[in-house]
């Protein structure tokens, strides 16, 4: 079981849904949902810089299509911290989009550990689960 997981999604129902599935599958001790990607980003930065005592989440489920700060913007903002995040925090894109171009784009990002299409399937979670 993971200690901490972030869910970044501008849609409340999506966060609730992902949380409920993660909970039913006993995926993590703590699930934190962020409606505003900026706040999630700030939290991560604080942990990386050590300005907060909060530990980094081990897994992030990141939505792509969000107003103001999209999932892509989020990844770009994190790119300077690629080294710091490596091995400590894995980012999975979790989107409802079926646009193949986005999958290709995600494959190019070193920060992205995987591309998942909503809804989150139990089988995928089994694969992602911490042994």
């Amino acid at each position: 079981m993971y200690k901490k997981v972030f869910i970044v999604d501008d849609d409340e129902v999506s966060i609730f849904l992902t949380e409920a599935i993660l909970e039913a599958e006993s995926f993590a001790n703590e699930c934190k949902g962020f409606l505003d990607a900026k706040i999630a980003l700030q939290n991560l930065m604080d942990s990386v810089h050590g300005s907060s005592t909060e530990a980094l989440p081990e897994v992030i489920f990141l939505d792509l299509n969000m107003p103001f700060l999209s999932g892509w913007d989020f990844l770009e903002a994190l790119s300077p911290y690629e080294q710091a995040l490596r091995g400590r925090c894995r980012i999975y894109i979790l989107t409802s989009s079926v646009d193949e171009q986005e999958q290709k784009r995600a494959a190019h990002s070193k920060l992205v550990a995987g591309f998942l299409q909503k809804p989150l399937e139990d089988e995928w979670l089994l694969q992602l689960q911490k042994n």
Partner: protein
Amino acid sequence: MHNITSPIQRSTGLDSMRLERLNRLLFNHYPDAIYTIKLDGTFHTVNETVCEVLQKSREQLLGQNYQLIIHPEHWEESLHYFKSARQGLPQRYQTVVLNTSGEAIFLDVTNFPLKAAGNVVAIFGVAKDITEQKEREQALIRTTQELQHQNEELELFRKIIAHDFRSPIARLLGLGKLLQKDNLPEKTQEKALGALLQSAQQLDGMVRDLNQMLTLHHQGDEPREHCDVEELVQLCLDNMQQEVDGASASITLAGHLDTPLFTVKAFLVSIIQNLLSNAIKYRSAERPLHIKISLVQHGTEAVLSVADNGTGMNLEEVGPSLFKMYKRFHHSIDGKGLGLYLIKEQVRMLQGRVEVESTPGAGTTFKVTLPIH
């Protein structure tokens, strides 16, 4: 065997014509405009085609400056070409002249210097009327632009299907699967059922919106009619009575709402309603909502503005995405983001434009400029 005739046909009739007369006939009856212009810029000779194209008599033209027939937008360049020809350099260019009826005629012009004893004494020119060709070209450009626009829209629809329609569908699937699980906490189950219904409603709304949007494209040819703006605003307010009352909004009408507009009624109603709906949706929680609707005439255009004292937005942040489909700029507000897109499209079809001014925390004003006739 064929009887091979000499390639040079000798005709006594033609033979008897003197070269000078031939030249004059050719000059006068040549299907393109032929003319000579003196160094001071006045017409020296013109053929019949010049008179026909310009709808002027030879007497009206001779001695008159050629610049007077040029379309004002082309004055500067035609002066430049004239000066170059006067310096002995042949010129070939396209320009626009105005005939007596005020119609623009596109000409393909060749001007070359007429020399005597090594000195330029006049400009000799031939001008071909290419108006039809130009009009065909412009029609082609318009068609190409329309096609491009429609292609962009197709791409937009693809994106809507791939992103936006997939979103409530993914939620419905996820919620369905979640509800299949055993021993789900009662609270979670309850919330999931509520969300299931909400997602289905959202999907339904999107299907309706998309349908409305696709219908819009067939309405572009709808007949325009004289619209009483004041009456239409009142109609919109009646339609939205519940929302207006629910927000306890006060509404002021100002300017000259009695200015009649010759436009598509259904579009105008939809525009006003969408703007009102926006103002209500993005009202501030800190003060009672006030909306001011006004109509001001500027020459041949009318500006319809809807100003609110709502939450406002940072236009620099929102920027060019404001009028795009399914873009939302406010957290915690249930908006499908289609309203502004619809407004933009309708205004475009009415040959108008829409502008927005906004201050975060103070309010937003939308200004729709439409042609009066």
